């Protein structure tokens, strides 16, 4: 009979657990439907040289990283040193997608802060961004040898994320 008095307490603890989980999740991190699907094809001019183009098909056969960024994006600046670190590790080529930006602004930012990208594709009107389901720059995609998106991160990359998630995943993908 005594156990009966514990029921409200147990219900309350259950509620607290649910709320704690709910409060600690970022509602902006919506699971992408693109995981394990082919990376959408596109052909865009390169940021540094408008006469050259970039297309994901040219990356077939290697694991690579697509990072969506823009000069107007504050969180991208925060992420920048982490990207430099990622590029330095030489684990995988990092391609930029300059999203809804102005060429001169973007180039100025890279000149000032350093350029972690092998190259950046220039998506001035954001049309390719829509195909990739971009809604909060920066976003980062890891794409495998056959062009399938294996991982997506919304928001700035952190060193913790690199060490705990991205490096292990890159190692695993490169083995296969």
């Amino acid at each position, binding site marked *: 009979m005594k156990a009966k008095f514990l029921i409200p307490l147990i219900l309350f603890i259950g509620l607290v657990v649910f709320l704690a989980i709910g409060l600690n999740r970022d509602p902006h991190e*919506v699971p992408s*439907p693109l995981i394990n699907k082919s990376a959408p094809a596109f052909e865009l001019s390169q940021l540094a040289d408008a006469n050259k183009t970039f297309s994901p098909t040219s990356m077939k056969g290697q694991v690579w990283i697509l990072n969506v960024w823009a000069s107007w994006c504050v969180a991208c600046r925060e992420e920048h040193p982490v990207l430099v670190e990622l590029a330095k590790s030489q684990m995988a080529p990092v391609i930029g997608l300059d999203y*809804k930006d102005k060429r001169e602004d973007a180039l100025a930012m890279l000149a000032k802060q350093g350029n972690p990208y092998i190259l950046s594709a220039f998506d001035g009107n954001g049309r390719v961004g*829509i195909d990739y*389901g971009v809604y*909060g720059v920066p976003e980062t995609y890891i794409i495998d040898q056959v062009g399938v998106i294996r991982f997506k991160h919304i928001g700035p990359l952190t060193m913790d994320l690199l060490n705990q998630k991205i490096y292990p995943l890159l190692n695993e993908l490169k083995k296969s």
Partner: protein
Amino acid sequence: MRRVFLLAICVLSLGNVFAKDAAPLADDLVTEQRLISISEEMRCLVCQNESLAGSRSDLANDLRREIRILIKEGKSDDQIRSFMVERYGDFVLYRPPVKPVTWLLWIGPFVILGLGIAGLLMYLRRRNSRVPNVMLTDADNQKIDALLNASDKKEG
């Protein structure tokens, strides 16, 4: 002084010349109405409490433009919805589709309601059986009648 003032007014009013144009409406009302009916059912991912129809975020603008193009291309509402879901997931839809992942979402509340009703019924039944079934004797009945009559008289 006056000339400087006039010049200042001229220069300041130039700002209006460079003001942003209003976002273009589609040329025809039919497209616009379909756009609204589709985008009202969709969530803007940047400001998640706003619909795609009502949001002023840049992405919502782009997506409305994209939906206009799809409408002009003669795509059906379902095709446009799947265009959005392929890119942004079921989360863009205010009415998520019924499928195994969303069963809990759709049926969950009814399951909880059912559990509540079952619990209530069980509680009531148990309480009913616990109330002792007292048989009144003739003496008890007489006492009750006497009491009732007494109070009647008082009121009368």
